[in-house]
């Protein structure tokens, strides 16, 4: 595995449990993610992979266990939590671009409101980021005027504008038309190459093979298997993973 382990892992979950009512959605999860590592989380629906992703910036609170980012324990609520979230970029399945703001405003909002950076400089950088994800010409439009793939790339630029330490992707291509999936995956692949630490929940096995350092397979709220992509896809250890792979890789 191509690890760049320099001391502390960037993200560490230990003994994390979460319940939705009677349902034990996360069961004693331990996971460490190193700086620059790209971890892809896969698994059947309802396996808890999205929930796991969302606990990392506490969009989902946990019932027990501990999560820390860059050595700092995730606070419960309030300003400290907001400050920590600013360092964690998040890309959602349904894009969640601010509907009443232009594309450019979507990208500049965080740096201006949260980081209190100067507007001129923030806008210059935002335009660079929009160019980088290939939607530079759409800066003055509203989200609804863009295609799904374009919206998702704006969402990536919005997250990048905060200079995050780690980026979370919660099924970023699941709401996209097939022809738009690649334009988003290309952006993510180039991010991975640039050394961004990423946690990606996805069903895109091609992306997992291409860009991941590690594949984490979840089922029934547990991490069943964790291996580098080559090993995982060619020689899965658990029966559950074998079964899952046989269902999705056969067509």
């Amino acid at each position: 595995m191509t690890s760049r382990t320099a001391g502390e892992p960037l993200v560490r979950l230990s003994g994390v449990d979460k319940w939705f009512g009677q349902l034990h959605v996360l069961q004693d999860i331990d996971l460490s993610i190193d700086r620059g590592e790209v971890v892809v989380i896969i698994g059947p629906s309802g396996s808890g992979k999205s929930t796991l992703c969302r606990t990392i910036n506490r969009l989902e609170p946990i019932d027990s266990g501990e999560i820390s980012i860059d050595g700092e324990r995730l606070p419960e609520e309030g300003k400290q939590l907001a400050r920590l979230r600013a360092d964690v970029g998040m890309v959602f399945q349904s894009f969640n671009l601010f509907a009443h703001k232009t594309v450019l405003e979507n990208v500049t909002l965080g740096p201006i409101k949260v980081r209190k950076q100067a507007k001129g400089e923030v806008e210059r950088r935002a335009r660079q980021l929009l160019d980088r994800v290939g939607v530079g010409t759409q800066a003055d439009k509203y989200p609804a005027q863009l295609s799904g793939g374009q919206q998702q790339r704006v969402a990536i630029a919005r997250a990048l504008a905060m200079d995050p330490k780690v980026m979370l992707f919660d099924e970023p291509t699941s709401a996209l038309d097939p022809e738009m999936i690649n334009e988003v995956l290309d952006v993510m692949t180039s991010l991975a190459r640039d050394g961004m630490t990423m946690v990606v929940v996805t069903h895109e096995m091609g992306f997992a093979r291409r860009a991941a350092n590690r594949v984490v397979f979840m089922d029934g709220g547990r991490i069943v298997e964790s291996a580098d992509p080559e090993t995982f896809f060619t020689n899965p250890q658990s029966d559950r993973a074998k079964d899952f792979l046989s269902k999705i890789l056969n067509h």
Partner: protein
Amino acid sequence: MQFLSDNSDLLWSAFLTTLSLAVTSGLCALVLGTVLVGMRVSPVPPLRGLATFYVEVFRNTPLTVVFFFLFFGLVYVDLQFPTRFVTAVAALSLYTAAFVCEALRSGINAVPPGQAEAARALGLDFGQSLRTIVLPQAFRTVVPPLGNVWIALAKNTSIAAGFAVTDLTAALQRLANVNADQLLAVFAAVVLGYLAITLPSAWLIRLIENRVAIVR
């Protein structure tokens, strides 16, 4: 007609009283209602409870009773508003704020939860996310229900007439009592006075609605 022009001073000042009752109370209710809805959707349980309590008390109490309490009940705790006009504004604002809060809350519920999630994920705190992301979108969808609240308020000002505030309804009572034969003329003038407030409001509401509509 002669009769109306003889009393135009009274009618005009009554119209202005009604208008300023409505506008002042409307603005106060909008501010108070916004604060209340902020509390009602906040993650802090005591704030939520307090706001819910407020809304249920004022939404379910007849406005006349609220007036009655502020005019005659508050003296028992040694409180007194400076003028009858201010007392009326207080009653109307406190009462209407509950409806503003609920109208706004329906708007907030109509904003997809992903919007607030994205705001929080960026590092905005609860207040920032409410002010910059959720409320601006909520206000757009609540223009029609807020319009209803405003028109109801404009008409509710007439209750002040029963508490010695000389508004349009009070002018109607006064003039009609003295000149029963002119009842129809006075009645028409007063109704026109209310329509002069509510009808342009309805047009304005439609205009604002079209102006702020967002594409989703």
